[in-house]
């Protein structure tokens, strides 16, 4: 039961079309299977069932080739639409090619070149990764402005190096700090591959060696929670902000208890439901956001009507209750 | 000696870490002769040959071949210059055909890129025909008997038009017919002025074919002489540095109760209808040609091989031996014929190798002190030659490895000891020692089964002899205690070739 009041609105849309008697098949191709994507999958499966579709999920295990294969196989198998969470956002064109004229919805990670969405049958539903890190940065900037501090040193826990989410989240937080007039320098940048245990192991030597830092910035909640563990193990009182992204259940709990200062809610259920709705709308030839609460992209680009943004939402102690 | 030497090796020194295997030895070989190299196990014979053909470069020394000083970096260079070798330890590539093994590393080519399979096969056939070898180029190497694999090695060695052929114990896996065959090949090579360096521990062979004999002892050169100037006693004295007594110190001891009874035993097609009994104090010999199925019988009794029919009784009670573990529980020991394959633990030291079948006796936690004491005791009894008990067994010479294995089974103190080719590749001195130990064990009331492809050995030691032919028992012969020739060897050979069969009706 996650989902804030404002974010689970996809449900409204699905309720309208329940019992419409449609029957079809949708394949969901996930880049890998983790907590976030599993939640997304569950929401999408439920929404699809309500719309009369049978949704099958596939795990591409971080192999962009396999992803293309899944799409082609889905096409060969006569699926009605395919939802893809791309392994490599730069390889979106080849996925579009593989899908041919089958409706295709990218979810969660946007294609690097958004012009692939120009095709009739292609859409994107997701959250803007440029903003996730930015929210972290804005929060931190505010925090230090309040303290009257303009120079900070941070420890950065990175995801899998080279992945788009890692790159954008790191860039976003740095940019936000800069934009808000905070001079931030890294103490150390550690690649803990989104893993809690690796985060503990990597950050512990830094903590015990007594290096000075002002905050810990993490690319996701799991690593942030690892940092919390490591601090507790090392007997360090957490009087500095630790920030994460995802707002997993554990992450939200940690924000509530004050162990983490903030996280950024990325709405897996909204993305899952939105993707299924976009599929249904593509098949029916309607506007892709029909029946959802989400807006289309407003930049007025040629592909704007093919994008649904499910916003990131900063979560702090003040509003964490909405996300639990 | 005024003849030109085709090969001269001078002052060869070879050092291994902790061991000086060769301490400045020499060897001079005349063309068109058989030059035999003799010495106890570990004297350095194989090592010298490996130095010669470039497998292990000598630490120092000079090699003059065909008038030029040479130093081969690898076997290929040696082969290309005209020296080939049949190695002591067989080394076939089991998963390939005879043909491919024959042309290993020098497969005939159709063009610079492609192999010529047709030509390879044809040349193999021609070669086999020329040397009258009963080999099929298309057979998988792993399906051949050891003897046939050895014949492939021989074919390989003679197929190079070499000037010197080294044969390191070529007959240890051959039957008499094949040995005769090899000797005719050697004669042929001699007539073509090829020199043969021959290494063997079998005295009768040596005196039949040698022209010159060189003796080493402990990595040192003892001397060289014409074969006709030597006899067995002189030679043994040169090798061992002392006289060796009776080769077959058979002592007649009282034969006791039946301890082992085998009834109608079979294992697949390897052998069938094998029945015999074995008494305490008895040495039961198994004779037959290589491939007669003797090894399979004892492997089946010992539980290595699956029994498909028949019963085994020990002390009158039927036993079901499914693994060597069971066999050892029933106080049976087996010294296997394949020392490297299923005997030694190359990476472990002598102590561990000695106690390995006996670990149960060292308690929990294991008593290492007692292990070492036992190992020292039994290896002393076997006169194993080793720098220390911590030496890895793979660094010992073959004969010394064999002694460690004998020590292993003696330590176990089995009631029934089965020895399969116990003296294969062992020097005369050690051979006599092993024989006397076997005799002593029989005297203590143990029962012994002894397999040997050397008829004199079985004849010399056995109380009774079972002769096998192609997986069937042909006859059981009793020792004639009065005669000088306890078994009639003509008779034995008739059984062994299947020309005579006392059990024809049993089939």
């Amino acid at each position, binding site marked *: 039961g996650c989902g804030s009041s404002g974010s689970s609105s996809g449900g409204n849309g699905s309720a309208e079309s329940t019992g419409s008697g449609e029957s079809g*098949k949708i*394949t969901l191709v996930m880049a890998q*299977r983790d907590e976030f994507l599993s939640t997304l999958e569950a929401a999408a499966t439920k929404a699809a069932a309500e719309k009369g579709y049978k949704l*099958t999920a*596939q*795990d591409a*295990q*971080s*192999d*962009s*080739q*396999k992803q*293309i*294969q*899944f799409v*082609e*196989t889905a*096409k*060969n*198998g006569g699926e009605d639409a395919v939802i893809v969470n791309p*392994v*490599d956002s*730069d*390889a979106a*064109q*080849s996925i579009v*090619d593989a899908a041919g004229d089958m409706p295709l919805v990218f979810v969660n990670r946007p294609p*690097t*070149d958004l012009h692939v969405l120009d095709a009739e049958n292609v859409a994107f539903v997701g959250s803007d990764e440029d903003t996730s890190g930015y929210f972290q940065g804005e929060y931190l900037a505010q925090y230090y402005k309040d303290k009257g501090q303009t120079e900070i040193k941070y420890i950065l826990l990175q995801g899998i*190096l*080279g*992945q*788009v989410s890692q*790159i954008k989240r790191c860039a976003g937080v740095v940019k936000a700090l800069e934009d808000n007039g905070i001079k931030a320098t890294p103490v150390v940048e550690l690649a803990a591959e989104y893993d809690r245990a690796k985060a503990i192991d990597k950050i512990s030597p830094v903590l015990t060696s007594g290096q000075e830092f002002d905050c810990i910035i993490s690319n996701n909640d799991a690593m942030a929670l690892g940092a919390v563990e490591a601090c507790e193990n090392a007997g360090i009182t957490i009087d500095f902000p630790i920030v994460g992204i995802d707002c997993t259940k554990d992450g939200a709990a940690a924000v509530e208890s004050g162990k983490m200062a903030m996280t950024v809610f990325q709405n897996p259920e909204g993305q899952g439901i939105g993707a299924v709705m976009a599929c249904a709308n593509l098949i029916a030839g309607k506007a892709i956001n029909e029946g959802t609460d989400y807006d289309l992209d407003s930049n007025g680009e040629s592909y704007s009507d093919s994008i649904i943004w499910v916003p990131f939402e900063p979560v702090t102690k003040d509003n964490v209750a909405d996300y639990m | 000696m005024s003849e030109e030497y085709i090969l001269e090796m001078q002052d060869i020194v070879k050092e291994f870490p902790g061991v000086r295997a060769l301490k400045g030895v020499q060897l001079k070989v005349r063309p068109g002769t058989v030059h035999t190299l003799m010495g106890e196990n570990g004297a350095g014979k194989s090592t010298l040959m490996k130095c010669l053909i470039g*497998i292990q470069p000598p630490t120092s020394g000079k090699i003059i071949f065909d008038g030029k000083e040479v130093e081969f970096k*690898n076997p*290929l*260079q040696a082969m290309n210059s005209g020296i080939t*070798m049949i*190695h002591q330890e067989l*080394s*076939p*590539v*089991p*998963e*390939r055909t005879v043909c*491919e*093994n024959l*042309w*290993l*590393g*020098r*497969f005939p*080519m159709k063009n610079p*890129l*492609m*192999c010529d399979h047709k030509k390879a096969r044809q040349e193999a056939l021609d070669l086999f025909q020329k040397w009258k070898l009963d080999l099929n180029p298309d057979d998988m190497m792993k399906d051949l008997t050891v003897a046939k694999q050895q014949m492939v090695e021989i074919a390989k060695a003679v197929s190079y038009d070499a000037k010197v052929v080294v044969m390191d114990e070529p007959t240890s896996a051959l039957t008499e017919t094949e040995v005769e065959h090899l000797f005719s090949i050697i004669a042929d090579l001699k007539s073509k002025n090829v020199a043969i360096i021959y290494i063997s521990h079998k005295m009768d062979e040596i005196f039949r074919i040698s022209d010159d004999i060189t003796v080493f002892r402990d990595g040192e050169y003892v001397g060289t002489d014409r074969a006709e100037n030597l006899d067995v006693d002189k030679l043994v004295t040169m090798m061992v540095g002392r006289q060796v007594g009776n080769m077959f110190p058979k002592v007649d001891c009282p034969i006791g109760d039946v301890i082992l009874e085998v009834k109608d035993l079979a294992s697949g*097609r390897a052998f069938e209808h094998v029945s015999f009994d074995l008494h305490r104090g008895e040495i039961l010999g198994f004779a037959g040609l290589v*491939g007669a199925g003797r090894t399979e019988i004892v492997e089946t009794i010992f539980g*290595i091989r699956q029994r498909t029919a028949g019963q085994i009784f020990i002390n009158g009670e039927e036993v079901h031996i499914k693994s060597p573990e069971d066999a050892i529980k029933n106080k049976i020991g087996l010294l296997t014929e394949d020392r490297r394959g299923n005997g030694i633990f190359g990476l472990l030291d002598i102590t561990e190798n000695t106690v390995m079948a006996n670990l149960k006796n060292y308690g929990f936690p294991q008593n290492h002190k007692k292990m070492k004491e036992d190992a020292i005791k039994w290896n002393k009894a076997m006169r194993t030659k080793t720098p220390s008990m911590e030496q890895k067994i793979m660094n010992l010479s073959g004969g010394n490895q064999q002694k460690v294995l004998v020590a292993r089974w003696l330590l176990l103190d089995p009631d029934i000891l089965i020895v399969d080719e116990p003296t294969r590749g062992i020097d005369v001195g050690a051979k006599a020692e092993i024989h006397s130990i076997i005799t002593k064990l029989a005297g203590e009331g143990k029962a012994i089964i002894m397999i040997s492809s050397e008829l004199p050995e079985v004849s010399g030691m056995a109380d009774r002899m079972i002769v096998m032919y192609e997986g069937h028992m042909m006859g059981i012969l009793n020792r004639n205690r009065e005669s000088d020739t306890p078994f009639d060897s003509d008779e034995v050979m008739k059984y062994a070739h299947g020309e005579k069969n006392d059990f024809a009706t049993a089939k």
Partner: protein
Amino acid sequence: MEATKKGFDFKKFMSNNAMWFVLIVLAVLLTIARPAFLTVANMTTLFTSESIKGIITCGVCWCILSKGIDLGPGSVAALAAVISASFAQQSDALNRLHSIHLPAIVCIIIGMIIGAVIGIIVGWLVAYTHIHPFIATLGSQLICRALAKMYSSAPVSNLDQSFRNFAIYKIAGIPMVVFIFLLIFIISWFMMTQCRFGKNIFAIGGNDQAARVAGINVEKNLVLTYMWSGICAGLAGALLAARTGSADPSTNGLQYEFDAIAAATVGGTSQTGGVCRMSGVLSGILVLGVINNGLVLLGANDNLTQIIKGLIIVGAVVVDMRKNAKKP
């Protein structure tokens, strides 16, 4: 002992070709369950998606044959992918790594050269220092992955069409990458059965002492083996970039080595060295391909797919072992 029968040996034929029968059975079952399986379109998909791993398998099977292993190909492919792709970026690419632009074929060759160089280093280590291939190639796996990420922290995309055509250009509806795979397969087969190099590797894998004693230059041949595996991995990497239109240093080729090793082993290549048949390797590649493809068509849950895949790999090898079954 009995003389072996002459003529056609049915049992031997069966056991030598067991995987092909497994393949046929799988294909029939799948076609019954999902007629979409046995269509030209789906077969094209199957071959196309197995081609790149197939190329890697054609290299890795040599290492296994030589009694070694190669854990590097996935990472080598990633490194080759980013580097070769970086020379094939369109001039107006969003995130161009550098401004050097080379003809497509040269980019592909660069990928192969990268693989070859790494292969030579690994082979040298294996041959001359006697370090176990498992460790040498584990090292190359770690190092190449890191090098790929250092070379470019983000995916290298916006690649030339001429470069991409090496993978996706279609002849008679079949993408180029399939033809390249077949070419590599044939070269591998040719080397293994027709050239002295192949015979040498069989000998080295079967009994390296025997090979050495027979005058085979074991070291040189081992270096060549790992070089070949490297070349295949490098080519696979370049084609991977060409096929997906992007070279991603962090995910390209992840775990490909395991799929390749599994395919080779399912195809009867023995991990104890000295046994390999290219026809078997092909059957292994296809069995894994059919499983991957078929289970997707059946809509199986992917966790279940992994379990079935694991069971089939193990099961196939167990079945295959029975023909080499050691006597008791």
